[in-house]
C-alpha cells in the first residue's frame, strides 16, 4: 500500500519531513518501509500489520498523524445539491443475509458525463498504484483510497424495472460473470448483490459484467456497504480472486463510515462528472452493530507496562486518538470508534497508550521473583552430547522433513513395508515435499548424491531429526533419529595414507559412540534390509531393543540415487540409545599385579562370525581374562580354502595375586580345547 504525502496533507498538517514522518509512524506501529520522491509529491510505502487495515484509507492514516501531533483534522468536502426526486422512489434495497451484510446503502446520480478524471485525481490514483479509467470508476476508487470504504457503481439503466437490490446468499452452483470477464461458480456461503433474481455483483469482491459502467452510461447506482470480513474472505478464497475491495473488507471496514463515503462519492460525481444527485441515501441497516465500550484502568496500564504514567497522561493518549470516553472514578470508559475493529479489550487500549507514549520511553527493568534453575533435561543434554560426538566424525546436515513417496521405490522397499505408511500433506508445495519422512536415509542419500554431482568427494554426514509414523485419528508418532552416511575415503594428508570409509570404519565410530555413551553389549545381527547390502549390514540389538540398522548401501539403491562410490549408512533411534546409556561410570582400581599377554591364532570356517570365536574365548577365559582383541584376519595361501585365520591377543590378570605361568597355560589349554570342540577351530 502506498500513500501520497500531498494527499495526506489535505487532512492533517505536520511540520515534519517525509523521513521524520516515516520514522514517527514506524515507531508508533505504522511501519513505513520506503519513502520515494515522485515528481512534486512524496510517496510512503506502508507495511501494515494485519490489524491495522483501517490505515488503508488516507483519512485514517491522517488520524494516526493527528494522534501523534495533536493537530486538527480537516475533513474532505461534501457539498451536495440534491434534486427533488427522492432516491427512495427509485431504488429499494433488501437484505436476506444480514450476517454477511449488516448494512447496505445506495445513492442514485443521474446524467453523468463519462470522461477522463482530472489530472490531479489521476496522479493520486497512480501514486497509489491504481490505474485511472474514467471519472466514475476513478471517483469510486478515489473514495475507497480516501475513506477505506470500497464502493461499487452500477449502470442504473441496466438494472431491471423493479430497481430492487436484493442482497442474498448464492445458491450452490450459481454463476456470475465478473467485470474481468471470468465466469465464477459460487457456493451457498457466497454473498450476491442481485437484481430481479440475477446476480449483478459478487458482494465486496467484484461487480458483474452485466451492469458495468460504460461510455454510454447515464445514470448510476452507487453502492456503499458493510460486509462481514469472514464471508468476504471465504468467497474470495473460493473464487481465487483478491481485489482492492475484498482486501479492505477482509481486514474490516467501518460500519458507520458507509454513508459518509457514498456522499463523498456523490459529491465528487457532481463536481467532476456533472452528475445530478438524487435526494437521500437508501440505507438498509436491519440491526445496528452495538457500540464497543472498553474499560481502561490507568493502574492496569502501569501494571502491565511497568511504567508510572499518571491518569492524565493515559487519558491524554486516548483523547489524542479522538476516542470518546467517560471518567468512571479513576478509570476510563472508552467508546471504541467503529473504524478501529482491532480494539476489543483493555489490553488493546493499553497497546494504544504504549505506542503513543513510545515504546522507547518505557523503562527496561529486569523482573523480580524467585530464582529458577534453568537448563536442559537429561534427554535434551544427551541429544546435545550426541550431536557433539557425531560432529567429530561427520558434518551435520539439515534436510527437509517432508519428502516424496517415490523414495520408497528408490530404496527398494517392498509394497507392504510399514515404512510406506505415511503422514501425507493435504496441500504440499510439490510432490517432492508431499509426505512426512518415515526414515532418514533418503535425505542423506540425496545429500551425498548432490555433493558428488558437484565434485565434492569423500563425504561424511549426519542428521538428528524426527521421522513420522501415522497413528490415526490422533497425531502421528514422532520418533527422533540419528543417522549418518559415509562415502569415499578419509581425508588424505601428507603424513599418512587415506583409506576407504567402509563398513568397519562406520562400525568403529558407532562402537566409540556406544563406549562414550556407556552403552554396553550391543549385538550386531546380520540383517535383511532391502536398502542395504545383504552381506554387509546389521541390526544393532541391545537386549530386547533394536537400536537401529547399519550397513553398506545396496548397489541398486546407490544406482537409484546416482551414487557411484560405495556408501555406508546407519540410522539409530535416539530415545532407545538414551534409555540404554549410562553415564554413571563406576571407578575400578588399577590392578597391582602384573598382566600376562598371550597370542592365539586359530583357523575356522570362513562363514563363522568372529563374534562366536570371541564368545568361546571369553567364556573359557573366565574372570582372569581381562581383555581379548583381534589383531589379524587372514584368508589366503597359507590357510585352507573356505577357511580363515583369526589372531587374538589376550590379557590375563588377577586383582589379588600374580598369575603363575602354569595357571595361564591351563587357561590357554581350556580355550584351545573349547575352540576345537565347539567351533572345530584348528590352532595354528
Amino acid at each position: 500500500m502506498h500513500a501520497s504525502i500531498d494527499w495526506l496533507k489535505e487532512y492533517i498538517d505536520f511540520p515534519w519531513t517525509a523521513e521524520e514522518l516515516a520514522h514517527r509512524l514506524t515507531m508508533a506501529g505504522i511501519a513505513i518501509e520506503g519513502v520515494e520522491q515522485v515528481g512534486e509529491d512524496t510517496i510512503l510505502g506502508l507495511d501494515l500489520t494485519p490489524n491495522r487495515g483501517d490505515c488503508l484509507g488516507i483519512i485514517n492514516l491522517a488520524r494516526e498523524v493527528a494522534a501523534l501531533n495533536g493537530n486538527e483534522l480537516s475533513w474532505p468536502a461534501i457539498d451536495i445539491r440534491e434534486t427533488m426526486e427522492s432516491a427512495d422512489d427509485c431504488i429499494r434495497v433488501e437484505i436476506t443475509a444480514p450476517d454477511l451484510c449488516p448494512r447496505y446503502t445506495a445513492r442514485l446520480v443521474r446524467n453523468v458525463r463519462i470522461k477522463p478524471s482530472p489530472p490531479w485525481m489521476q496522479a493520486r490514483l497512480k501514486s497509489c498504484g491504481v490505474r485511472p479509467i474514467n471519472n466514475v470508476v476513478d471517483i469510486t476508487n478515489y473514495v475507497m483510497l480516501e475513506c477505506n470504504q470500497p464502493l461499487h457503481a452500477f449502470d442504473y439503466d441496466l438494472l431491471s424495472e423493479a430497481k430492487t437490490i436484493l442482497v442474498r446468499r448464492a445458491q450452490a452452483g450459481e454463476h456470475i460473470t465478473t467485470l474481468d470477464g471470468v465466469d465464477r461458480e459460487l457456493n451457498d456461503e457466497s454473498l450476491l448483490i442481485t437484481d430481479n433474481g440475477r446476480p449483478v455483483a459478487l458482494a465486496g469482491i467484484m461487480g458483474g459484467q452485466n451492469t458495468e459502467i460504460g461510455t454510454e452510461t447515464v445514470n448510476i447506482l452507487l453502492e456503499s456497504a458493510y460486509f462481514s470480513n469472514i464471508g468476504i474472505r471465504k468467497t474470495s478464497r473460493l473464487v481465487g480472486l483478491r481485489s482492492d475491495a475484498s482486501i479492505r473488507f477482509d481486514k474490516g471496514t467501518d460500519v458507520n463510515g458507509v454513508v459518509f463515503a457514498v456522499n463523498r462519492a456523490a459529491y465528487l460525481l457532481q463536481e467532476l462528472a456533472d452528475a445530478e444527485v438524487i435526494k437521500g441515501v437508501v440505507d438498509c441497516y436491519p440491526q445496528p452493530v452495538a457500540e464497543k465500550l472498553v474499560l481502561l484502568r490507568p493502574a492496569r496500564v502501569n501494571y502491565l507496562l511497568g511504567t508510572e504514567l499518571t491518569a492524565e497522561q493515559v487519558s491524554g493518549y486516548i483523547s489524542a486518538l479522538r476516542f470518546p470516553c467517560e471518567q468512571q472514578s479513576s478509570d476510563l470508559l472508552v467508546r471504541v470508534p467503529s473504524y478501529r475493529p482491532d480494539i476489543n479489550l483493555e489490553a488493546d487500549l493499553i497497546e494504544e497508550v504504549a505506542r503513543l507514549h513510545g515504546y522507547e520511553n518505557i523503562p527496561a527493568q529486569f523482573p523480580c521473583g524467585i530464582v529458577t534453575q534453568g537448563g536442559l533435561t537429561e534427554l535434551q543434554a544427551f541429544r546435545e552430547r550426541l550431536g557433539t560426538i557425531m560432529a567429530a566424525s561427520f558434518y551435520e546436515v539439515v534436510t527437509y522433513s517432508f519428502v516424496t513417496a517415490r523414495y520408497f521405490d528408490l530404496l527398494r522397499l517392498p509394497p507392504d513395508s510399514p515404512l510406506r505408511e505415511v503422514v501425507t500433506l493435504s496441500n504440499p508445495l510439490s510432490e517432492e515435499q508431499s509426505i512426512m519422512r518415515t526414515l532418514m536415509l533418503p535425505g542423506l542419500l540425496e545429500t551425498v548424491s548432490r555433493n558428488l554431482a558437484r565434485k565434492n568427494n569423500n563425504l561424511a554426514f549426519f542428521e538428528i531429526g524426527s521421522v513420522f509414523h501415522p497413528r490415526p485419528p490422533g497425531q502421528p508418532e514422532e520418533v527422533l533419529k540419528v543417522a549418518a552416511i559415509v562415502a569415499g575415503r578419509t581425508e588424505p594428508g601428507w603424513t599418512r595414507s587415506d583409506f576407504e570409509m567402509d563398513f568397519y570404519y562406520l562400525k568403529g565410530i558407532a562402537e566409540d559412540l556406544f563406549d562414550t555413551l556407556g552403552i554396553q553389549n550391543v549385538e550386531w545381527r546380520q540383517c535383511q534390509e532391502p536398502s542395504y547390502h545383504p552381506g554387509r549390514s546389521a541390526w544393532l540389538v541391545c537386549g530386547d531393543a533394536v537400536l537401529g540398522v547399519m550397513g553398506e548401501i545396496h548397489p541398486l539403491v546407490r544406482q537409484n540415487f546416482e551414487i557411484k562410490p560405495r556408501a555406508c549408512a546407519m540410522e539409530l533411534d535416539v530415545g532407545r540409545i538414551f534409555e540404554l546409556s549410562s553415564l554413571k561410570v563406576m571407578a575400578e582400581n588399577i590392578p597391582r599385579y602384573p598382566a600376562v599377554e598371550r597370542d592365539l591364532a586359530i583357523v575356522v570356517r570362513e562363514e563363522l562370525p568372529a563374534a562366536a570365536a570371541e564368545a568361546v574365548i571369553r567364556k573359557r577365559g573366565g574372570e582372569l581374562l581381562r581383555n581379548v582383541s583381534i589383531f589379524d584376519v587372514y584368508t589366503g595361501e597359507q590357510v585352507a580354502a573356505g577357511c580363515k585365520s583369526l589372531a587374538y591377543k589376550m590379557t590375563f590378570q588377577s586383582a589379588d595375586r600374580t598369575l603363575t605361568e602354569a595357571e595361564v597355560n591351563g587357561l590357554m589349554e581350556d580355550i584351545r580345547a573349547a575352540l576345537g570342540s565347539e567351533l572345530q577351530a584348528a590352532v595354528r
Partner: protein
Amino acid sequence: MIDSLLGIKEEAQQSIARAGDFETLNAIRVKTLGRKGEITQVLRGLKDLDAGQKVEVGRIANEVKDGLEKLIEAKTQQLKARQLETALQSERLDITLPGRPGKAGGRHTISQVTAQITAIFTGMGFTVAEGPEVELDYYNFEALNVPRDHPARDMQDTFYITEDMPLRTHTSPVQVRTMEKMAPQIPVKIIVPGRVYRKDDDATHSPMFHQVEGLLIDEHITFANLKAMLMLFARQIFGSDVKVRYRPSFFPFTEPSVEMDISCVNCGGEGCGVCKQTGWLEILGAGMVHPRVLEYGGYHPEKHTGFAFGMGIERIAMLKYKINDMRLLFDNDKRFLKQF
C-alpha cells in the same frame, strides 16, 4: 718417576683435549689409567724407592690420576652434550608443514545458533520445552487466539495433514501445551527451539525452518521486563555494542505486541543494502501474553502476566554469519558446511 708421571699427565691432557668422540676418550683412559696403563706401569718401579719417596710419588700419582679422571669425566659430559645437540639438529622438522588432519566434521550452523540461544536463556533460568511438529489446530491457532477465519491465519500459509492437524507454523503451540501442564504453578519460564513449516519458498523463505520461542509467566511480569531481558539477549548473541529498538507490531497471541530491531550488523546502523538503508534489522517478535491465551493456558490474566517472544533461527544465523541465501542452509553442500 715423578717426571714420568708429569709427562704422562701432560701428554694425556693434550690427548683428552683433542679427543672428538667417546672411543678416542676411552682409549686415552685405558692407555693412561687402565690396569695395564701408563701410570700403573710407572708405579711398578715404586717398590725400588724408599719410604719417603714412596709417599711423595704416591701422592703425585694420585693427584695425576684424579686430575685425569676429572678431565675425562668433563670431556665425556661435553661429548654427550654435543652428541645430543647433533641428534636434535638432525631431528629438525619443517614446522611449516600442515599438521595431521583431525577435524572430520562439525555441527550445522542452525544447531550452533540454537545452542547459543539456548545457552543464553538457560543461563537466565529458562528450561527447554518441546512439542510435536505435526500439531493440532487447537494448539497451533485456536488457543493462541487465532480462531478459524481469523485474518491472522493469512499471515502464515499453513501445510495441513487434515483439517484439524497442521504442520506447526511456529513453535508457539508449545506455550499453550506447557501452560496447560503447569497451571496454576508459576513461574513458567521456557524456551522452545524447533522445526516449523510454512508454505513459502524463495531466497528468504524456506518451507521448513527453525524457531526459538520463549515464554515467561509470573505474578507480575511487565513490558519493561520484556525490554530488559530481550536487550540482554541481543547483546549476548550479537555483541555488547549492538543497539536495539522496539516498535509496536501485531501478533494475535500478544497484546501489546512488539518487534525488536537491532542496529544493522553489516553497516553498524549507517544504512546499507542488508538493512534496506534503514540501519535497523528486524530480528524478533514479542509481546505481553494475550489475556485470552493466558486463559486458554489455565492462568487468570488479572493474576498472572507474562511475555512471549519468537525468532527465526535461520535469520539470526544469516545475520550473524552474513549468509545471503537461506537455501544454502538446507542445501548441505560440504563446502558450505565446512565453513562453520
